[in-house]
């Protein structure tokens, strides 16, 4: 009774192998390696499982880290099929070296995170410089800190943070634990954090962070079919819906 | 005025009573493991006692549930291992006590120099303890123990682990520095006892079995153990008409002694006792005691043949012919002073 079904699956696999040159024979799923910025962790996981449901012959392995780390991994020759970074400058370091065509798939803006209940009574960017307000931001050397500086400039506020962290996660940690009264973070980071609330940041649109994604060329010189399909899935309306739900803006 | 101690430590089976009159030296005589070190450490305050009382010149150190802390006892201890402080110079070692007792740094050093001179170690002042020979270290340790002018000093085997030459020199030094000092010297050596003791207490298995002046205990011991520690053998019997009559009936003519019928004994150095096997000719002028060999004890150049009533030292060649359990005759000199037991 079962043999015919096995035969049918085998035939389908063969058919797929015939039309998709990069698919491995014998029905073994191809592994697609996606490198994504840490801030994309949740949305990428959702998009990946949707993608895998649509492509049963592909097994997607996602690796999350800071954008610069990922970029340097790619430049060091780590095997990867797709790269999604949290800013264009980092992607540019890769596109300078490799033949790729990055596309913007999401945007993100800064906002103010306060501990649950807003114990510091933060009302907006001006109250961040009030005496006694403990503010934590990203260090100006890293992208989220550079963006913070630009927004502060646009709003005319002078910020004096007690700590300049290397990444958003460390900023959120200080706020969520109540050590800081406020932190400046990305809307998306705030959306997935527990124990924090949002206070609107005026002039946040002075810096709109754009998230580029690119299919990376293989040893053969051009990206694989599945890598292109994955990028397309991220840019599709289904992908956009997932991104919007996590606080990302449209490009 | 005296140092009076009753030391009771059940876990070490020690129950010893001692008294030292002010300015006198008591030699505590016993074998290794008899409890000498424990008794000294208890008096010094290092080892806690279960009960008992220790008092010096009327000042109680233990008893009634109180215990005077180490630093307030004013009893110095010279331990077998010298225990000089390795991180200090010899001078600072000796100055440590006076400085701890409140002398200024200069006074303490002055006292220390005086003591180093008394023990003949002036030229060692700048050295580290690791740079000293055994005899030098012992001199420094003696100076250190005496420098704070303790009310009593306890010396644990002060002549142990020294070569013959150093031991001789240190023995002479102790005779000199312990004069007029209230001291207890623990030793297993009869020579040290003769050289240093005003009084002697013999300790066996944690208990003082005999105590008295040096001449009493060393020349007229009343127990076999005390006799042994005094390097003698005690021959017991009953007085009868100018002779000591042994259990087996042998008569040993003696000088003096208690009244007839009283228990008495003579303490004889085993080298003075002759030994004869069953059919050997017997030298006249001795009382020959028939006995059975109990044990053979090698003692350096000689072997001590122990019987149940007497013992004799013989040379190893002769001893090699003797077997335990064999019947022998001990030739005891006659005319030795007898005393009541």
């Amino acid at each position, binding site marked *: 009774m079962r043999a015919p079904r096995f035969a049918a699956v085998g035939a389908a696999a063969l058919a797929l192998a015939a039309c998709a040159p990069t698919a491995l024979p014998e029905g073994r799923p191809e592994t697609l390696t996606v490198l994504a910025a840490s801030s994309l962790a949740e949305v990428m996981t959702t998009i990946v499982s949707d993608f895998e449901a649509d492509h049963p012959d592909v097994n997607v392995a996602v690796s999350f880290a800071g954008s610069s780390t990922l970029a340097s991994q790619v430049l060091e020759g780590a095997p990867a099929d797709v790269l999604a970074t949290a800013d264009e400058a980092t992607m540019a370091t890769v596109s300078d070296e490799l033949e790729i065509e990055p596309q913007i798939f999401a945007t993100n803006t800064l906002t103010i995170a306060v501990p649950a209940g807003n114990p510091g009574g933060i009302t907006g960017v001006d109250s961040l410089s009030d005496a006694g307000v403990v503010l934590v931001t990203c260090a100006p050397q890293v992208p989220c800190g550079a963006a913070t500086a630009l927004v502060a400039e646009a709003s005319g506020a002078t910020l004096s943070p*007690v700590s300049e962290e290397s990444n958003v996660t460390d900023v959120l940690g200080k706020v969520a*634990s109540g*050590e800081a009264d406020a932190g400046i973070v990305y809307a998306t980071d705030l959306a997935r954090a527990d124990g924090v609330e949002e206070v609107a940041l005026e002039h946040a649109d002075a810096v709109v962070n754009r998230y580029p994604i690119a299919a990376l060329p293989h040893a053969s010189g051009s990206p694989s079919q599945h890598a292109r399909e994955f990028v397309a899935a991220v840019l599709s309306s289904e992908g956009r819906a997932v991104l919007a739900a996590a606080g990302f803006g449209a490009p | 005025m005296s140092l009076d101690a009753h030391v009771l430590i059940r876990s070490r089976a020690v129950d010893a009573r001692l008294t030292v009159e002010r300015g006198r030296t008591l030699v505590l005589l016993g074998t290794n493991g008899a409890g000498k070190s424990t008794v000294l450490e208890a008096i010094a305050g*290092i080892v806690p006692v279960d009960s008992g009382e220790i008092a010096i010149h009327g000042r109680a150190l233990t008893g009634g549930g109180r215990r005077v802390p180490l630093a307030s006892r004013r009893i*110095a201890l010279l331990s077998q291992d010298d225990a000089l402080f*390795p*991180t200090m110079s010899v001078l600072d070692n000796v100055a*440590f006590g006076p400085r*701890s007792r409140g002398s200024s740094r200069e006074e303490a050093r002055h006292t220390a120099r005086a003591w180093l001179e008394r023990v003949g170690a002036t030229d060692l002042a700048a050295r580290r303890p690791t740079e000293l020979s055994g005899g030098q270290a012992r001199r420094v340790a003696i100076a250190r123990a005496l420098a*704070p002018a303790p009310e009593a000093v306890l010396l644990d085997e002060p002549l142990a682990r020294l070569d013959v030459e150093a031991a001789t020199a240190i023995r002479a030094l102790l005779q000199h520095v312990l004069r007029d000092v209230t001291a207890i010297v623990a030793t297993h050596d009869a020579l040290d006892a003769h050289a240093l003791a005003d009084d002697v207490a013999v300790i066996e298995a944690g208990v003082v079995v005999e105590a008295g002046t040096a001449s009493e205990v060393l020349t007229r011991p009343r127990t076999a153990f005390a006799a042994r520690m005094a390097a003698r053998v005690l021959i017991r019997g009953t007085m009868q008409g100018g002779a000591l009559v042994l259990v087996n009936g042998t008569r040993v003519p003696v000088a003096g002694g208690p009244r007839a019928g009283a228990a008495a004994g003579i303490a004889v150095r085993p080298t003075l006792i002759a030994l004869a096997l069953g059919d050997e000719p017997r030298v006249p002028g001795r009382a020959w005691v028939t006995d059975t060999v109990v044990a053979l004890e090698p003692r350096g150049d000689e072997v001590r043949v122990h019987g149940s009533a007497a013992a004799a030292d013989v040379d190893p060649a002769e001893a090699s012919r003797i077997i335990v359990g064999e019947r022998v005759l001990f030739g005891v000199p006659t005319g030795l002073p007898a005393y009541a037991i």
Partner: protein
Amino acid sequence: MIGPRWLVPLAVAGALVVLLPLAGLVSRVGWSEFGTSVTAPASLEALALSLRTATIATLLVIVLGIPLGFALRAMRGPWRALVRAIVLVPLVLPPVVGGLALLYAFGRRGLLGDALGGSLAFTTAAVVLAQTFVALPFMVVSVESALAQRSGRHEAVAGTLGASRTRILFRVTLPALGPALATGAVLAFARALGEFGATLTFAGSLAGVTRTAPLEIYLARETDPAQAAALSLVLVALAVAVVAIAYRPGSRR
């Protein structure tokens, strides 16, 4: 002691596990810019802060670790093993966990938060506290094991000579523990210098206040990898020097 020959390839492999990452680090240092990388204001500020905080932390470790070592030695039976295990926890704790633990104790909302009024977080004192927390076990272990080697005879003799317990401690016991104390202090200093996770989690990162050399490296890694490598090399050199001092031949004699 000479072992069997088959130990040799394993020993070589073991050496490579240590040497290759160090070689990798050296390979990334831009030697032409090494001087400017190390003397850049941010680098110097971070190094100075690290040396200052690690020195204070080492002093605290000496003052607190020695009594703790004595207390540990004085304990009897199962208590000692239990307390020792607790005191040594910072040695084996993941650094971030150490930071969280400090946060929950001394942070604004921590056990002592109200008592401290939130004044500790984001200060240099928080850095020193984090460093002391992770470095303390080195001193405690050093002191305890050195005390275990002692019979107590010297202390007893000193007592019979009339010395108070304080005098015995300072004149007899501590001098004798000298080499162990030096080793403990040097290792504690090295550990404090390298402290990262607990500082990042607990103290924050602000130039001149809480951004020690390891945090500067962490930040520079994102923006200026050559500076990160140069500063890392300086820390490695310091660590090698410190360990060489602590374990120099004869230091235990």
